[in-house]
């Protein structure tokens, strides 16, 4: 214990890789760590580990000051996108509850017009959170639902529109095109870009997280990330690689299936948890 040698760096490499950090990002992090350790003459194992956590947290640093984007003119439009099953609908329910507790008046838009019982699922969250709700019948046009929801929000004086969309694989070009259309229709209704386009990522995801961020970023103009299911054992290390390449701040973290299980992202928490 306390011996600084190559063994330590191979232990750190293993921990990073086991946390779903990519091979390339792991090499990058460890090479920067060696430089920092040499330059600052860090001489203990604890010191090196502390330095490593700091290095990882600092990659996210600029996120900490950001909550979700609030526009000058309400209602805010926050759109939720991502692949199948990551937690979009549940996150909207939690966020609606949080907004209500702050005296806001959120409206949930049932933009998933495709999946079995998707509208009903969001409706339950609207009831649980006390939020307004706009939905149509299954099979109707998703973009139209979001449009109607925005109009309804303006008419009712709602403060926030939280728009759900159907899960989709970024490999399906027709579905990605549909998503692009929903964003454009929303833009027209708002007279500006959505205040947030949040890509929801499941913490269990490995290297595919990068692909998801690239493709959804490109089509939907993603402004931020939500990391869900961190109450499990997965560390979400794939996120580290996203920071440098794509500038996608992590805004929210899902910590369970209950209505209260949503927090703001904290880089220090993320870095510590990575090595827990």
């Amino acid at each position: 214990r306390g011996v600084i040698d190559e063994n330590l760096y191979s232990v750190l490499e293993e921990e990073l890789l086991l946390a779903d950090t990519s091979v390339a990002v792991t090499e990058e992090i460890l090479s920067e760590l060696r430089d920092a350790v040499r330059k600052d003459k860090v001489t203990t194992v604890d010191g090196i580990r502390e330095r490593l956590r700091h290095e990882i947290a600092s990659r996210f640093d600029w996120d900490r000051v950001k909550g979700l984007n609030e526009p000058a003119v309400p209602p805010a439009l926050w759109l939720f996108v991502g692949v199948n099953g990551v937690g979009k609908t549940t996150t909207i329910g939690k966020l609606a509850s949080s907004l209500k507790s702050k005296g806001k008046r959120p409206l949930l838009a049932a933009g998933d017009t495709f999946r079995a019982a998707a509208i009903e699922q969001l409706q339950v969250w609207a009831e649980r959170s006390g939020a307004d709700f706009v939905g149509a019948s299954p099979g109707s046009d998703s973009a139209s639902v979001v449009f109607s929801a925005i109009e309804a929000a303006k008419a009712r004086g709602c403060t926030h529109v939280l728009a759900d969309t159907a899960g989709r694989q970024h490999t399906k070009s027709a579905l990605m095109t549909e998503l692009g259309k929903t964003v454009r229709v929303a833009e027209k209704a708002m007279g500006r870009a959505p205040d947030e386009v949040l890509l929801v990522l499941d913490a269990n995801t490995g290297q595919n997280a990068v692909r998801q961020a690239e493709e959804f970023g490109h089509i939907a103009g993603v402004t931020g990330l939500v990391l869900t299911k961190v109450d499990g054992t997965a560390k979400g290390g794939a996120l580290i690689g996203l920071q440098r390449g794509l500038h996608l701040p992590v805004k929210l973290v899902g910590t369970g299936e209950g209505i209260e299980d949503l927090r703001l992202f904290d880089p220090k928490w993320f870095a510590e948890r990575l090595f827990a």
Partner: protein
Amino acid sequence: RLTRRLTGVFSSLRRQGRLSEDDVNNALREVRVAVLEADVNYGVAKDFLARIKEKAVGENLFGSLTADQTLVRIVRDEIVELLGEDVPFHWAPAPPTVVLMAGLQGSGKTTTCAKLARWLVKDGKKPMMAACDLQRPAAVHQLQVLGEQVGVPVHTGQGSPVDVAKEAIQRARHLFCDVLIVDTAGRLAMDAELMNELAAIEKAVGSHERLLVLDATIGQESVNVAQAFQDRLGLTGVVITKLDGDARGGAVLSVRAVTGVPVRYVGTGEATDALERFSSERMAGRILG
């Protein structure tokens, strides 16, 4: 993609006409990167690489001018061998055969229940589904809608998931159904209480197939997750879903290597006909990229 990587590594060696141990180690490093990028578990990758090196030496890769092709073949064959043979459906000696669907939140269990039900209908069988997820909002409704879509009855009920499961098996026997497919709530592998509930549901109905439904995008935790479900339930198979995305699916290799549980089916889309039998050849190609 592995082929491309190795061609790069070996192109300089072709000029020299022979391979040194260093050259082979560089090539193995490329294999390691490819396998880790495919989400194969770190520990599994380590053992895997050791076996590959052994085979490479055994096949005298050092003397070969087509070493890159040989190495790719060795890696591919090793993956196929690890992934194993096709396992036929475990029919019960007397109906109904009970299939229990389990897994993490959002992995695709409910959809897979309907896909399997549709498959069985096409095979001339008479399945029933049991809606034992009483936790997720509108989960029962979701299974009912899917049941209508595939023309399969869905048993819903009051009480606990165990109560509903018990009622369902009675009803399935009463209606002479061939198969009862039990949908359960997503749960964390580390949630002892919910893992106990799963075991209780299994005990209440007596299952013949216990399938772990795993999202193809899962990363390093695939091993811990699969091991926990294996320990608590004793799995008969894995269903890997969302392979219509571009996740490489290395979790399949990890789970098979560590738990020995075979992959039985593959989910290839959201529609109820998007279920295929597992093919180790196709999976090997996908993992290699």
